[in-house]
């Protein structure tokens, strides 16, 4: 099997496309919250599927519970957008959006799903626009889990390589933050490399 690798130019390009996409997504969420978000540099990691759990675990607090919202998308560039938010941060989001001290679990769920919808749809739509393709979105799913259950082994057993494109959404003044991951696998990685190369050729011509 041919090794899947991105060269320096391809990683740089993907980071830049992601940066532009995060900018658009952050702006939409900031508008929803009427607050200012700090933008972070995106990270690109290519790993074997069995390493994914360790990569994600390294970025979460093992003692906390997390909201995990996953949304699949398919097309020439397919994968999964995942937003991981600490339970305490989700409560702050509920407080802030509903202007009440103790939002109900339903209120928090609604707030987290609404934020993720805006975030993932803007992010992926903008990224695929940069890459010149269209994707189809599936209904997102949300759950509260312990940190060790963010990714289940069975979620990834059919894949060999995974690209993780990740960044942090951070509203410092409101104590709201979360990690965004775009996971894309196997054939989708080859499509992604092809799309990046086409885009680079177009830009440099």
């Amino acid at each position: 099997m041919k090794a899947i690798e991105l060269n320096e130019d391809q990683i740089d390009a993907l980071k830049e496309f992601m940066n532009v996409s995060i900018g658009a997504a952050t702006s939409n969420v900031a508008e929803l919250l009427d607050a200012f978000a700090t933008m972070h540099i995106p990270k690109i990691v290519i790993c074997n599927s069995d390493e994914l759990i360790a990569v994600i675990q390294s970025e979460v607090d093992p003692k906390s519970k997390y909201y995990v919202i996953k949304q699949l998308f398919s097309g020439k560039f397919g994968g999964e957008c995942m937003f991981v938010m600490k339970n305490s941060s989700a409560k702050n989001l509920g407080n802030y959006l509903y202007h009440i001290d103790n939002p109900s679990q339903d209120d928090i769920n609604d707030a987290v799903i609404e934020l993720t919808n805006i975030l993932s749809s803007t992010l992926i739509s903008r990224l695929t626009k940069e890459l010149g393709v269209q994707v189809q979105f599936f209904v997102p799913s949300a759950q509260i889990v312990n940190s060790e259950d963010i990714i289940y082994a069975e979620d990834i057993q059919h894949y060999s390589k995974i690209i993780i494109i990740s960044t942090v959404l951070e509203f410092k003044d409101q104590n709201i933050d979360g990690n965004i991951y775009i996971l894309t696998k196997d054939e989708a990685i080859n499509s992604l490399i092809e799309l990046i190369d086409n885009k680079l050729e177009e830009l440099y011509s």
Partner: protein
Amino acid sequence: MKILVVDDSSLARKILIKELKKIEPSAQILEAENGAIAVEMFKNEKPAAVFLDLTMPVMDGYEALEHIMSLDPYAQVIIVSADIQPEARKKVLQIGAKNMCPKPINSEKMESIFMHDLII
């Protein structure tokens, strides 16, 4: 004339330089990959204009802009960023940037910058 282009992405720098060269083909383009290098280059090279990204490692664009404006209050700095929040725009204009343009920059935007924002 020297123009300094600051961005941690080499692709973003290339796109910007390509557009710059269409308008100022004879300009000498200087490149920096973070704010700290940009501040040093600004001190040493005294460019006529700076195109500065915001989200960068080592030193971000906000801090670099503050340093540059303290070195030269008349520095002509254009922010080119993916961060399109109104608060970000307000902040950089308060520090002293001439304008802020969303990424990716294109010919039309570049022409407008040279027509309305820069005195070169």
